[in-house]
């Protein structure tokens, strides 16, 4: 059983749902029940049509779980002040995300919902 490092956030869909109407449709993600995870970046894929952050989330007994997090396109991230170098392997981050409806370890995120673990914003405007 996966272990989330933060509690489920009961907040509204309108203020927290990631981009639902995108290239692929984000229908497999549950934007109405966002959660927050913390972990270390394994890989940041600045790829089109959608970007990905792969995060290693620590669990019980030194076990860890790999979370696959899908974001918006690089062009949209650039508009948010991001670049392909904004995250590097080992960065400790926390991400508020819309989890998979199926319950598997992953979800979708928006640029403003990714922060360094110490609370620092990634935005580089």
């Amino acid at each position: 059983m996966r272990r989330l490092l933060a509690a489920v956030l009961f907040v509204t869909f309108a203020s927290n749902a990631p981009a639902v109407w995108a290239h692929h449709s984000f229908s497999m993600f549950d934007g109405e029940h966002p959660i927050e995870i913390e972990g270390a970046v394994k890989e940041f894929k600045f790829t089109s049509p959608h970007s990905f952050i792969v995060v290693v989330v620590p669990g019980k007994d030194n076990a860890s779980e790999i979370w696959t997090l899908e974001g918006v396109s690089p062009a949209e991230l650039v508009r948010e002040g991001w670049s392909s170098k904004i995250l590097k392997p080992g960065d400790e981050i926390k991400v508020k995300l819309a989890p998979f409806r199926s319950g598997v370890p992953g979800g979708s995120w928006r640029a403003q919902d990714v922060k360094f673990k110490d609370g620092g914003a990634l935005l580089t405007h």
Partner: protein
Amino acid sequence: MRTIFITLAALGFASLTFAVDGRADSGQYPDWSGQWQRPQGRASFDPSKPGNAQQIPYTPEIQAYFDKVEANRAEGGLKDNFSTSCVPLGMPRVMINYEIMDLMITPDVTYMWFTESNELRRIYTDGRAWPKKLEPSYLGYSIGEWRDEGHTGKFDTLIAETRGFRGPRVFDSSGTPLDRDDQSVFKERFDVDKADPMRIHHQITTTDHALTRPYVVDRVYRRAKKDIWTDTICALDTSYLILGEENYFISADGYIMPAKKGQKPPDLKYFVNSRK
């Protein structure tokens, strides 16, 4: 694709320089060159309405079909979102302009290159007639005309009509269908905002057998504040697996994940040693 586009650009600029065949000279055309983006967050086909409330005037039969598509989406499905399998967006969805639309205007052709799906649209403005036979394509065949509606001596408006499609095509990622007979006709108007040259207005009118009447949508593109170059290799970077009517997700560590709650795994009957 980028190499092709650069070649086309070179040819286009050459024709701008040497257009001396009696048509309008290059100085009459607007400078819309460069990259254009949709306003942020407006990724539905009609940007004035939420993605799940597009109010497309569907026939009862098509609306009933779309109701099934929406029910599939509510479960986490991706029914009829064909681009998930790297199928071209085609018309009219490509005009959502998910990432960047690069425009280049020549007297004979206006080129629109969409980086997100690597699709190159050509609107012929050389006065040609419709071909007797159109080879069906996702983007269709476009014929246009430049107009000087402001009577300034320079063109300010591009009118276009597009026919000759193959499918399947949809309006946007929610799976909003067009008729599978692919007889769509699109009439478009592009003109720059009089008060803000950084904005292009785009009106697109869809006539299709899925609709009870012509469907008119107004869109806006803004000139990109800085150039954005990203490779788009859909087949390489997609994390979606579509098998028949089912969609799955491929995890970063290489496993098939269910996209829906309680979804069964795909049938592995050809894998002799598959786990029970």
